[in-house]
């Protein structure tokens, strides 16, 4: 791993700071040419408002490390929650968030789901499997809201996409 990659990989997500950009799976590439570094990131959702902050944080940290950095965007392939690393999933659980299950990969037309999304979500606080969905949308586009039927705590679940 190059030194520039190590610096870029340690920058954290502005909205979920327990995750590095590498653990979140949005860091796609770091190209080093002498002191010049080009970092490629990809948005989680099309409207993700954290992109500008991610870019600024990357440029700031790489500049501190002595590089002239620029950040580029990759739109394809589209980000999947499957790209969150195992270390990232553990960090989410350690901070009271539920990590996503496997993302759906429909072979044909995308099926309509009129029942609440079926997920095996366990409470990140007490490990109970008795949890219920309260909302498919949360404080950010990438999270749904859940409640534990045992410890009664609400918690956020990072959605599968």
């Amino acid at each position, binding site marked *: 791993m190059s030194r520039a990659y190590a610096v870029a990989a340690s920058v954290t997500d502005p909205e979920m700071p327990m995750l590095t950009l590498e653990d979140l799976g949005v860091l796609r590439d770091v190209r080093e040419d002498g002191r010049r570094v080009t970092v490629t990131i990809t948005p989680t*959702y*099309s*409207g993700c408002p954290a992109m500008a902050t991610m870019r600024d944080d990357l440029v700031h940290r790489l500049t501190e490390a002595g590089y002239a950095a620029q950040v580029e965007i990759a*739109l*394809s392939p589209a980000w999947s929650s499957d790209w969150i690393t195992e270390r990232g999933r553990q960090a989410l659980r350690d901070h009271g968030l539920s990590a996503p299950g496997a993302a759906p990969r429909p072979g044909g037309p995308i099926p309509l789901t009129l029942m609440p999304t079926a997920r095996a979500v366990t409470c990140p606080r007490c490990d109970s499997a008795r949890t219920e969905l309260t909302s*498919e*949308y949360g404080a950010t586009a990438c999270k749904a809201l859940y409640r534990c039927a045992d410890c009664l705590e609400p918690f956020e679940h990072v959605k599968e996409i």
Partner: protein
Amino acid sequence: MSHQTPDPNDEHGSVYDGLLGTDTSQWAFGTDFEDPLAGVDTTVPSELDAAELAAYCLALGDDALVLSHRLSEWCSNAPDLEDDIALANIALDLLGQARLLLARAAAADPSVVPTLPDGSPVPVEDALAFFREAVDFRNVRMVEVANGDFAHTVARLLLFATVRLAAFERLATHADPVLAAIAAKGVKELTYHRDYAGRWFLTLAQGTEESRRRLLAGLTGLWPLQAELARAYDAGPEVDVVLDQVFAVSGVERPDVAPMTGRGHTEALSRMLAEMQVVARAHPRGQW
């Protein structure tokens, strides 16, 4: 008039001064810009007509932009907090799609971008959003009519997300790799939007007499605009399969009302744009 540099010793200093940091200009459009397509190869493939591609991306972008604005009007007004947040999230997804599509249109054919005063810091996608007249918007009328009640919003979102999702599944293999990438990403978001609207459609249809009455009124009111929406997206039979599935479980008949004739826009769009564009137009250099 440009904004004064904040003076911490000035007793009339504003509590908002700190927000500006060291950047005393361009505040109306954010303090810094990034190109949503930075580093993306926007060369138009030789087999495609750049002007046609730009026009198509503008239409797709305008639909997302206008419906995003309508959905954002629910902010703090939705029936409960969860749905307030859900509608805001859906609006944000659509705004992101709009931004990418308008930027793609501008890169394919720069002549679509309105000319702004010299020194204006406005990026191309903002120039397209804020400095075009209603007559230059290419969105379908379905997305522009004013919000009614929550049931009306649910019906509109179901119709729009169903048609757009089917089209984006096809566009994910479009000859333009940029449009294809935007569509492939949008598919994942629209899947959530369609499911959200479909569940609420069923809930309201099978809820109380009042919720059912409101849903049917919303659906019937919007249906004259469905033909134009379907045409704009080349909707195939797969759209009817999904809609008929929702209608069947909801115990709702497909409305039997004639399509609205004519083309162009309703008065609702110019009223909406007047509000959406007023700050940007008053300060095209982003300074006051």
